[in-house]
């Protein structure tokens, strides 16, 4: 039992911190938000090719770094500190987890090396009745994975991004409150056959798809912890500088206590995220409740911290120009992404054996 970071992990963390400093200024984030594909090509290249972050979870034999989820979590925590849009979550966590969960070496040999090389952004859409709402990253993806949940979880991999499949699918970019994450609606056009790689179906496919989402919840959670920490850090800096009534407002006890409560939530969430990331490697059966633990705990911390950030910044925190609203909107989108916090808590309730039948 050792619950501290190794030197290697600390180095990864610092590397990502350096990246953020160069590529994730407020201005860079706002430029990336405004791009058509939803992220900035140059920073994605730096992230995926130069730093190799897309291959974190890709096994070494396929050219990846073969690391554990806990290492990935460290990367997402650091990246979460700034809200730079990128397809890293859907590519390096969601798609890679899906692919490594399938016992299909041909598939892995075909796509995992490309992902590890930083060669493609991948998105994953789970369709019901031919439609998937709120798909992360579909617009800017080079590869699109579809899981038809209502058709025995048929998995199909489409190479070449949405533009190459005009006849068979329709991808519509959605304009969302949180502009830092690109979301789309994906639709299969009626009476068209998908011309892609058939990657399995049935319970195995469903399990892999669920696992892909659950790993994503943990990465999302790490991102949220990093974002919440930024809210705290930026607010601490502000209240030390801002003077009212002849004092730094950070000297008012009520302000101090609000900041302390933010730290309490953040530390609990951070512990939960590290714990869940370690647990699922050592104890895969716990994945459903561990994914819920991390996501909800971190999402609630970010919701709290982003709201307090605005409150403690006063009027300036309410402006478009200040980044506070980006964190506030990110907090909202995190609380509902893939599943809502309530739905995730319900998974915990079931795992705890809480009987849902009304007593007679």
């Amino acid at each position, binding site marked *: 039992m050792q619950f501290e970071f190794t030197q290697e992990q600390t180095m990864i963390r610092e590397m990502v911190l350096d990246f953020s400093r160069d590529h994730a200024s407020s201005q860079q984030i706002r430029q990336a938000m405004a791009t058509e594909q939803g992220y900035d090509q140059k920073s994605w290249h730096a992230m995926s090719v130069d730093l190799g972050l897309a291959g974190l979870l890709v096994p070494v034999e396929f050219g990846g770094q073969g690391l554990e989820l806990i290492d990935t979590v460290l990367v997402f925590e650091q990246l979460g500190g700034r809200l730079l849009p990128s397809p890293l979550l859907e590519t390096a966590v969601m798609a890679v987890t899906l692919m490594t969960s399938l016992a299909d070496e041909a598939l892995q040999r075909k796509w995992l090396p490309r992902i590890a090389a930083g060669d493609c952004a991948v998105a994953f859409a789970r369709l019901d009745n031919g439609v998937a709402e*709120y798909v992360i990253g579909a617009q800017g993806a080079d590869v699109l994975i579809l899981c038809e949940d209502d058709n025995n979880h048929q998995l199909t991999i489409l190479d070449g991004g949405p533009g190459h499949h005009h006849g068979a699918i329709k991808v519509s970019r959605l*304009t969302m409150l949180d502009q830092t994450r690109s979301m789309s609606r994906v639709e299969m056009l009626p009476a068209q056959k998908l011309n892609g790689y058939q990657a399995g179906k049935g319970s195995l496919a469903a399990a892999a798809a669920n696992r892909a989402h659950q790993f994503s919840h943990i990465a999302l959670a790490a991102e949220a912890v990093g974002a919440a920490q930024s809210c705290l850090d930026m607010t601490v800096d502000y209240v030390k500088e801002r003077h009212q009534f002849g004092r730094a407002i950070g000297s*008012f006890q009520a302000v101090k206590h609000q900041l302390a409560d933010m730290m309490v939530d953040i530390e609990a969430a951070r512990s939960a995220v590290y714990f869940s990331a370690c647990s699922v490697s050592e104890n895969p059966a716990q994945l459903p409740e561990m994914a819920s633990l991390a996501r909800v705990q971190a999402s609630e911390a970010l919701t709290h911290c982003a709201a307090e950030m605005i409150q403690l910044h006063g*009027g300036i925190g309410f402006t478009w120009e200040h980044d506070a609203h980006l964190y*506030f909107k990110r907090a*909202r989108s995190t609380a509902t992404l893939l599943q809502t916090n309530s739905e995730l808590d319900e998974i915990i309730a079931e795992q705890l054996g809480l009987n849902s039948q009304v007593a007679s």
Partner: protein
Amino acid sequence: MKLSFTASQETFRTEISEWLETRLTGAFSDIRGVTSQTAAAQRRILWEQELGRARWSAIGWPEEYGGRAADLAEQVIFAEEYARARAPGRLGHMGVELAGPTILAFGSNDQKQRFLPSISAGQEMWCQGYSEPNAGSDLANVNTKARLQEGPSGKQWVIEGQKIWTSLAQFADWCFVICRTEPASQGRHGLSYLLVPMHQPGIDIRPIRQMTGESDFNEVFFDKAVTAEENIVGEPGKGWQVAMGTLSFERGVSTLAQQMHFRNELSEIIALANANGKSSEPLIRQRIAKAWRGLQSMRASALRMLSHTDAGTLTGPQFTYKIFWASWHQQLGELAMDVMGKDGEMTGSDYQLSDLTRLFLFSRADTIYAGTNQIQRNLIAERALGLPKEPRG
């Protein structure tokens, strides 16, 4: 204690509601329900004039200034009917609710004759120049300066400085501005309350884009802006007392109109929950019930405040009302999002927000402006509960 109204008051109610139904037609029919600060501004100024012609604009004012000398119950009835008819948000409210009552209370006879009729007639719009970048919660930390100088037509005040969070500045003809007129003074001393015309070269208005993507507020820059010597309310150097008088007028009948607006928002949430099935979730049901309780408590608190206006002392809700409604409204915004689900996070292609999504974002400002929650708690603790004052640095 009695909640109901007399028969003659109910007649008055009918009169208003019929008038509103008749007039909110034609060119005015599509400004019904408009609550944003800036939308359909030109039509809403015409609507102010329509109200003014029928003496519905400032019914509590004396008749000689365009009012009806309406009593409390009548003002309550008017506020209720105005909101029930979904008549538009009042572009004239800075004049009717703030500038006008201040001039009535502290102004000279000449000022009353000059300004009040044009306010109640909807002929002149007003805005408020209080906040500054360094005078947020610390309202008295005013840096905008004015000095009396000889001008082309007599003495005039020359104003230098910056105000912020000025809503409606782009439509305003006049601004009431707190300025430091005694150069070496500090805090509440040495301030004056000036009435400044907005249409002049020395004034520059820059909209502030807020987190909704819209611009409801402005920065107003004064660069040798001028106003005539006589456009000062109260004595030079005594502007703080006048300004505080203005703030206290905010706790009036307008509260009831705001509540009717809140009620409409809650109704929209209920209708949506019934439509999308969220109404069957026990957690949502409880939160809606709680929101309704809060709304009823606010209505009851407003009635307590209004019934108490003559007593000279402050009653409990006068201390607690602001923080209650602001926090309540913020929670309503969160409830709205949870009822809308992920769809509530979608915007129009140009980031246009639905009313309920805007509520979610905009209500973050509710606990900040007009006294942050922190300032409100200080006031309650120190003034209502008599706890020791927070030391200044």
